[in-house]
């Protein structure tokens, strides 16, 4: 697929290039923020699996440079325009996408640490660490980056000044063996959560990528033990055809006596036990008429789920990014005079880079991926 047809196929790919984001995933965080006010009162943030750095870019622009990036950045003005003109009985025409420069309001004492295995181009005001989030040695590195006075010889692995928000947009290279991919993604989520448990302040938030697939309800149930609210959210900029979604966990409330540790991490082997107990009673369906006139049928499984808090629980789902946001699945008409731009960052070197080069030497084509410079 050529650059231009990719622009049409994916509005966010085009917008990301036009607005200087390193990856289209920046919009996912922006749309999550719009729905959940993720950055409200937030100054200390850890961004896990950060490369190529589009989420850190959002953090840099919003928290450090104090930009207000509103929905204007991703609004598909034609959607509302057509609706408005329909009401007025007119024919919709093309509309401009330009907005004035965003207002800025920098915050004080902002501290952002980004971690990834892959090297990441530096970003203003952000401390980048090249480290493995599953490894215990990463914790002192992170604590040191968060607080320069942190004494790495101390045995404490808890942050003296915990953070408000931990983000993770990490995903594995999928193999195609669905079970295994689901497992690996869950391990990445556990790794991010374990790190978050070490640095997050009570009441803090954790936002991470999750695959909405088989057994995702087991993950939800586990997350619900340490956070008061767990909502799974899909931004409009994430394709409907993708299983990707984001878990937004709010109000971190570590169970009494809980001590986070990467030497004995939570995950498959260690599980949290819920303090919730409820009397088992058969589910009673209830009906409720919502404000929009739709009757909701609650099968009453939530009560039951309290009993099974350790096993399965379906988190409420919330689509975010207003419906007037560009649709990631739709084919879009390009604005007039559209010039297709190069991506802000080319893909980094895959492990088979050497294989590509050897194959090239032998004269064979091995895919057309253009690689970034080896660093």
């Amino acid at each position, binding site marked *: 697929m050529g650059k231009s047809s990719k622009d049409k196929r994916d509005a966010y790919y085009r917008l990301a290039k036009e607005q200087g984001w390193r990856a289209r995933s920046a919009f996912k965080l922006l749309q999550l923020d719009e729905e959940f006010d993720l950055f409200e009162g937030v100054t200390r943030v850890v961004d896990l699996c950060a490369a190529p750095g589009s989420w850190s870019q959002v953090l840099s622009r919003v928290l450090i440079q104090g930009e207000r990036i509103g929905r204007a950045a991703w609004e*598909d003005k034609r959607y509302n325009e057509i609706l408005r003109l329909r009401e007025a009985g007119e024919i919709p025409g093309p509309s401009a996408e330009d907005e004035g420069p965003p207002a800025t309001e920098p915050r004080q004492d902002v501290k952002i640490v980004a971690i990834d295995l892959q090297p990441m181009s530096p970003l203003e005001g952000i401390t980048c660490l090249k480290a493995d989030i599953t490894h215990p040695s990463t914790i002192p590195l992170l604590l040191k980056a968060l607080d320069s006075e942190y004494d790495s010889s101390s045995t404490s692995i808890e942050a003296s000044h915990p953070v408000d928000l931990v983000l993770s947009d990490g995903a594995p*290279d999928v193999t195609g063996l669905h079970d295994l991919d689901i497992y690996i993604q869950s391990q990445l989520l556990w790794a991010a959560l374990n790190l978050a448990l070490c640095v997050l302040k009570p009441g803090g938030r954790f936002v991470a990528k999750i695959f909405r697939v088989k057994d995702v309800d087991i993950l939800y149930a586990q997350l619900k033990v340490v956070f008061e609210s767990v909502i799974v959210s899909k931004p409009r900029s994430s394709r*409907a055809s993708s299983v990707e979604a984001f878990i937004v966990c709010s109000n971190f409330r570590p169970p009494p006596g809980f001590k986070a540790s990467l030497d004995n991490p939570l995950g498959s082997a260690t599980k949290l036990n819920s303090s919730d107990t409820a009397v*088992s009673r058969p589910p009673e369906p209830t009906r409720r008429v919502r404000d929009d006139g*739709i009757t909701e049928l609650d099968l009453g499984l939530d009560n039951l789920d309290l009993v099974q808090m*350790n096993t399965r629980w379906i988190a409420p*789902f919330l*689509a975010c990014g207003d419906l007037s946001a560009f649709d990631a699945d739709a084919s879009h008409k390009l604005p007039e005079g559209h010039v297709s731009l190069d991506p802000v960052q080319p893909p980094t070197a895959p492990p088979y880079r050497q*294989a590509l080069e050897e194959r090239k030497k032998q004269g064979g084509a091995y895919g057309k991926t253009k690689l970034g410079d080896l660093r």
Partner: protein
Amino acid sequence: MQHETHQLPVTAVAFSGQDDILLTGEGNYLCAYDSGDKKLLAKQLTFRAQAIHGIILCEDSPSTGVIWGGFLTRRFHLDRSGSGFSITLGEVFSTDDWILDAALDPGSSVLALLTAHNALWISIPHTDDDNGLHDRLVPGSNCILYSAHIRWLSDSSCLIASGTAFGDIIVWSTAPTQSSGKWSAQSQIHYTFPAHAGSIFGVQISPWVHFPSSKNKKIVLASCSDDRNIKLWDISDLSAASPGLAQVVHETGFSTTPGGSGNASPPLLARTMGHISRIWHVRFGINGTATTLNSLLSFGEDASSITWSLTAASKPTTLPYVLNEDHVVAAHAGKNIWAVDITADGAVATGGADGAMALSPSPEPIRESEIPRALLGPGGDSFKAYGFVGRNALLATTEQGRVALLDLSSAESTASTIIAEPLPELRGYSVVECTAGLAFIAGTNGNLYSYVHGCRQLYKVTELTGKAAGLFAAHRASGGFALLVTSVVQHSALLLLLPDISAANEERLPSTQLALALPAGFTVTSFATVTVKGVSYSILGARNGYIALFSFDGNQSDTVRLVLIRESVHGKEAVTALHCVPTDFEDEHTYTVSTGRDGTLAIHRLSIACDSVELYLVHQLTLPFGPNIEAIYLTPSGGLWVWGFKSKHFTVYDVVAQREIMSVDCGGAHRNCAFQPSEGGGTFIWTKASKVYRMTQTALPYELLNSGGHGREIKSVAVTTLDRGRQIVATGAEDTNIKLWETVVESGFKCLHTLRKHNTGIQHLQWSTDGTYLVSSGGFEEFYVWKISSGLPYIDLGVICESKHPRSGSSDLRIMGFDLPESLAGSFEISMAYSDSTLKCWRYMDKSWQLLASADYLTACLMDVKSAHGDGTAVLTTATDGNIVRWVSSDGQQDRQLQWISRHKIHQNAIHAVTSINLTDGSRLLMTGGDDNAIAFSRISEEVKTLLIPRAHAAAVTGLAIVPIDEAKFWLVSTGIDQRVKLWEVKVNIAKAGVEGIEVKMLQDVFTAVADVSGLEVCKLEGGALGVLVCGVGMYLWGVPEERGIGAIRGQFDVDLYRPLLDLEAPEVKNNAAW
């Protein structure tokens, strides 16, 4: 809901070592096949909601073994009693992590399990005198592994290789011991080293083996990786040892210097690059009793397995050994070989993501050999033209004009007999046409010879008026032969009718000679004859894709009439082979089968009534190789073989079995060649760089126990019922193919045809009401109308692409959905939903398309469109913005106007599934499944009222289907990405307003092993019961219970729902088995 049959990725395989039984893990079913007759012996549900990822069998007792998948493991026993075969299962044990490998100790009692965090579990069944054990003996580390292999080196210790996500390999050993009733394990690390630049997907430890040109035995480690490399390491030296596993991970992430040069790195013996994508597995090819390691096998994402030969390196500066690609087996469609097993004598079994199970015999590759020119006699003569006159009998003419018979019966050498010393008219030019027992030869001067194999003699048949350009022979139904002789100069051909001269018959002269006047530009490339109602017909195929039909009456033998000419039979490409189905005397029609260089096989119905002769195309599909398809052959066992070329390969393919029979790297099309088919392959002779080669295949390179399906996930499914109640399932997949299936519960899904025409993944499929048309859509506005007919010879079901929408391929828009309402045969009004939010209505009739109306929704991608009835709306659409939208159409003077009148926000975002039922009051109940996990029931009359179940599934709802019960009640079956299939009872009291009278209750909730579910359809099972077909990565057919049976099962469901832990309980637990 009861499992009927399935076709799922094969994620585990194992040879049982006795009775030729092959075990496979297909989803959560353990299946046993007889590898001899390829029959399924038994299938057994194992884990409740977890696919099997590994099977091993006890070495000393091959009827018992262990399966594992995810966190779970279970022992099993195979019972063969008389003609019966069954699988019994032991208790389910859970570890706390993903199991990567398992191995039984030599006594088959202690099971060692290694998990993805490098923890070792030991599992021992409890017996009367032992309480058994199931515990983690060696704790793991934080680093995640992608692969591991456990090899017991003695009764009490095992050697383990662990491949990490970051390219490192840890080689360690452990010795589980029991003292005073307590188990413990001491472990030691021998090597921790950066082995690859990418994740390690496969590791394998050899037993002590000899190496080529080496006296000492070694233990070798083979590894394969994301970096496309296969490496062999010498890990014989296990003296270096450090205790503990916790400290092993040298640093985080990928180390900076991969390649095995570190201190702790074992010596690298050999390295090679293979496969075009990731490599999932490596195995050692150690042959039989010989204990020398001389080959290695690798299996990849590219769905191929490669055998590598291992030899000592000639150059001392490089690595000590060299791996050379020996041969490749590509038995699977699409991507990914997930599971492999290999026997001591070298047989290889592979399980693919396509659901196929391939079994390759001991890799004894067939080699090509040159047929020496010296066999043609003295004087440096060379081959001119050749063909088979019998099995292993090749008749050849030479440059100097000799005629030689080559005997290929010996695999090692070729013998020759000179039939004729140089004939002047054959010098430098000769044409040869061979059939069984007979050949015709012509040269420059018009002499036509026949060679009769029975007496090894050359006879002169007749004298032609000039040089022959081509000879085409065909058997006649009345006996004898028809020989068509084409000339280089004239626009005519000569048809000779000959008696059966292959018999020891004195009469060898043609009984009749007829001149056929060829149409202009008609260069004959193929020829066949048939007799219908006493009239003989000759069918000629031409280089420009034409077919011509000539008739001649047997009684008035001198009148030949051109009765029909048809262009574009194979596009503008040559019609390379023609075959006519022989007729009985009463038949008024027959069929012709043809192949062409357009890469297709075509079947026409030849209809003869009252002097009118018609040729109707009833089947034409692109074959999976080509485009140069050269010949047709009907096998004695009912197969239909075609052969031709695919890039550099000569390929033989069975159209009925839908599989490749043989493939030879001959350099490509456009060369002299001959093929003699025989069971399991045949003999191929070809000319390459003026040398002639032969290759004989006597057995298929692989057998398919389960022929498999799509190479990628299914995106759309549609079921139809043909005449006489025959049910056909159509599936369209991301691999761009459409497949037509018959469901046979006994033997699973039988693929009838694969329709290869789309260039993009299939978005939607729908049958016309009467099942005569199948319509498909994809990306790039691809939209095809397929016509289906049944009762054809050889292939039964005929498929042609009757029309392609004129805008196909014209833009990058996807046609997400469409609807084909009931209509008159062959004429449809089709509504199409596009990815750019437009809705268009087209009329299709007689291969022509007319745009009736077009309108925009907003900017959201439309997901589907359904024709509406009754309430005044024309159609309903669904979109990614969660709305259902009602559209009306109004007929204007010239064109029709399409306009949406109301939108109803039902779901939060994309609507993936939609189905509906008409209620008796004229309203319509529309059921939708959303990406938001919800199922909605929207009652549509003047207004739209909705009842929503927000958390109906744990992930996107992608399939809905209705099982009608009675007027007041139906069942809704839903499925989604959470791999659950749920059965809902929906009661409708139409007297109540809106959705107040709609009651919904969940009856059942079951796991399906189909991942990435894209849809489901209700179908009929044998015996008339209803089934539900779930499609995605594979297919799974459930039997829907009778309504009266639901109560009992509901109880079972309650147990399921209240079950407190993950998957520890199996559906059927048989405890205390002491194996």
